[in-house]
């Protein structure tokens, strides 16, 4: 009788343990499935974009990349103006945002009075939280008119007679255009550069900075000869990350770039970017080739940003490993 009860208890316990082990395995499998889904999403994005752009690839081949045509009536499309606009606006945005972002990071790590550090840091990060459509609305109604009245006429009269610059700053001051879009982009990526630089500046061992101060370096010399060389990889990674964002930024640019499908040497002229073209035209695109050309633009954008972001992440991973 007693032996039977013991046997029963052992059985119950074995069953309970098996149940727990099963739940354990199920949870493990579920989390792994979720992780695999992330890979599937990326794969799905690539496959669907390639599939969607096949008609355009067949119709235009590699000529798509170098053609300036954009004619929905005759179904003749080329990506060059959009790629040009994307690259040029992002490049100018980085020219403005990198020095300013590094300046802010320096200010926050070295110069700012301690009680103000947190509020100012948060305020700069809030800039990154403002949705991009807000930058667009603000850029269109407030910033573009300001640029048109105050900045562009100055630039035109200032550089009108200088050889190379006169073609960069030529044409009537529209307000909207490549330069305005670059400014807005610069403001949008500024907080990313500032906050990543600040994080990588924090990985510099204090003893290095103390040593620099100890031999009489000024703040500037310490930043220039100790902190920046030490954090070079991380800073470049942060800059590339910001560049990736600038390249893909859509709404803010769509509002202020002017949406003109042409490559023009003047920065004051309206242009377009890949994402602005897609945002403006996708729902109006009639016909397979038109839609497909827009999806191929999306594919090109994805490839460009993928490469830039991959390099950025690789560099940031390296500095994280060094810091650990």
């Amino acid at each position, binding site marked *: 009788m007693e032996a039977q009860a013991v046997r029963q208890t052992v059985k119950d316990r074995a069953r309970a343990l098996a149940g727990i*082990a099963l739940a354990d395995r199920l*949870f493990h499998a579920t989390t792994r499935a979720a992780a695999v889904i992330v890979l599937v999403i990326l794969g799905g994005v690539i496959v669907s974009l390639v599939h969607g752009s096949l008609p355009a690839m067949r119709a235009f081949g590699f000529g798509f990349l170098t053609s300036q045509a954009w004619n929905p009536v005759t179904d003749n499309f080329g990506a060059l103006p959009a790629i040009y606009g994307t690259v040029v606006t992002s490049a100018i945005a980085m020219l403005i945002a990198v020095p300013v972002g590094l300046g802010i990071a320096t200010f926050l790590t070295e110069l700012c009075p301690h009680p103000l550090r947190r509020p100012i840091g948060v305020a700069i990060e809030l800039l990154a*939280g403002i*949705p991009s*459509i807000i930058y667009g609305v603000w850029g269109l109604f407030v910033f573009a008119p300001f640029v048109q009245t105050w900045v562009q006429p100055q630039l035109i009269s200032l550089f009108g007679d200088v050889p190379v610059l006169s073609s960069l700053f030529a044409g009537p001051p529209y307000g909207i255009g490549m330069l305005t879009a670059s400014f807005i982009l610069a403001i949008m990526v500024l907080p990313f550069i500032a906050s990543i630089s600040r994080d990588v500046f924090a990985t510099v061992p204090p003893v290095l900075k103390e040593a620099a101060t100890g031999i009489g370096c*000024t703040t*500037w010399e310490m930043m220039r000869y100790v902190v920046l060389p030490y954090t070079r990889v991380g800073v470049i990674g942060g800059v590339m990350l910001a560049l990736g964002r600038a390249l893909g930024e859509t709404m803010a640019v769509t509002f202020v770039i002017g949406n003109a499908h042409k490559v023009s040497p003047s920065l004051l002229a309206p242009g377009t970017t890949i994402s602005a073209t897609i*945002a403006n035209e996708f729902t109006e695109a009639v016909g397979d080739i038109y839609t497909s050309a827009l999806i191929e633009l999306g594919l090109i954008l994805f490839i460009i940003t993928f490469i830039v972001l991959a390099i950025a*992440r690789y560099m940031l991973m390296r500095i994280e490993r060094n810091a650990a």
Partner: protein
Amino acid sequence: MSLYATRRKNNAVATGLAWGAAIFGLAWLFLILGSLLFQGLRGLTPAVFTQMTPPPGSQGGLLNAIAGSVLMTGIGVAIGAPLGLLAGTYLAEYGRGTKLATVVRFVNDILLSAPSIVIGLFVYTIVVAPMGHFSGISGAAALSLLVVPVVLRTTEDMLLLVPGSMREAAAALGAPRAVIIGRVAYRAAKAGIVTGVLLAVARVSGETAPLLFTALNNQFWSTDLNAPMASLPVVIFQFALSPYKDWQQLAWTGALLITVAVLTLSIVARALSAGRRN
């Protein structure tokens, strides 16, 4: 000039520029918030919350757009957050050091900063095109894809901060792995994970690009997920670019509403994570 004086001068110039950079950055924040308040408050009437988006020239509000935004963001987060949470759990708890985890982490970081318009194109080709029409559910699907990387990243980071000794203590009591994660690790990382979800909500509630050709827009009240659905960002986009003054006014008011909502969310999220750190 002596070398010493030159060095001092250079230092003064450099630190001056750094101060200038900080003031420059803060100035933009205040300029943008200032014009939003100035332009947006003018149109902030009860009608904004009680009436539908109007045709040009007549009275109206943003009710259907607000409802659409809340609905699509809610569904997007409801789908995306658990997925991100589970995947983040795998990376931090089960997959440490495995090849799968390394690849997923890398891919997730790419998705985190990938252009959202590309996500919109993806959802268009796999949901909208086969269905044959724009719909609220495809908008929510696009948003959920943007939620996943944010939640995954914060979940992993927060779980990695939980001390291993807590897991060991639970294991020594005989708790199985799933229970350790559920009752110990999640509980310890709760504030951080909630922060991640709030940040994800903040991020997607302002997203416009992926909604343009998934949810499209709708002039009328609609909670039908199978039909085109209005959302605040898309209405702002459409109204701001229109030539009508009253539409532009509504766009400003909508912009103010969305900015206040998003910034409030991110400040709350920051406060939560700061509370945990102290």
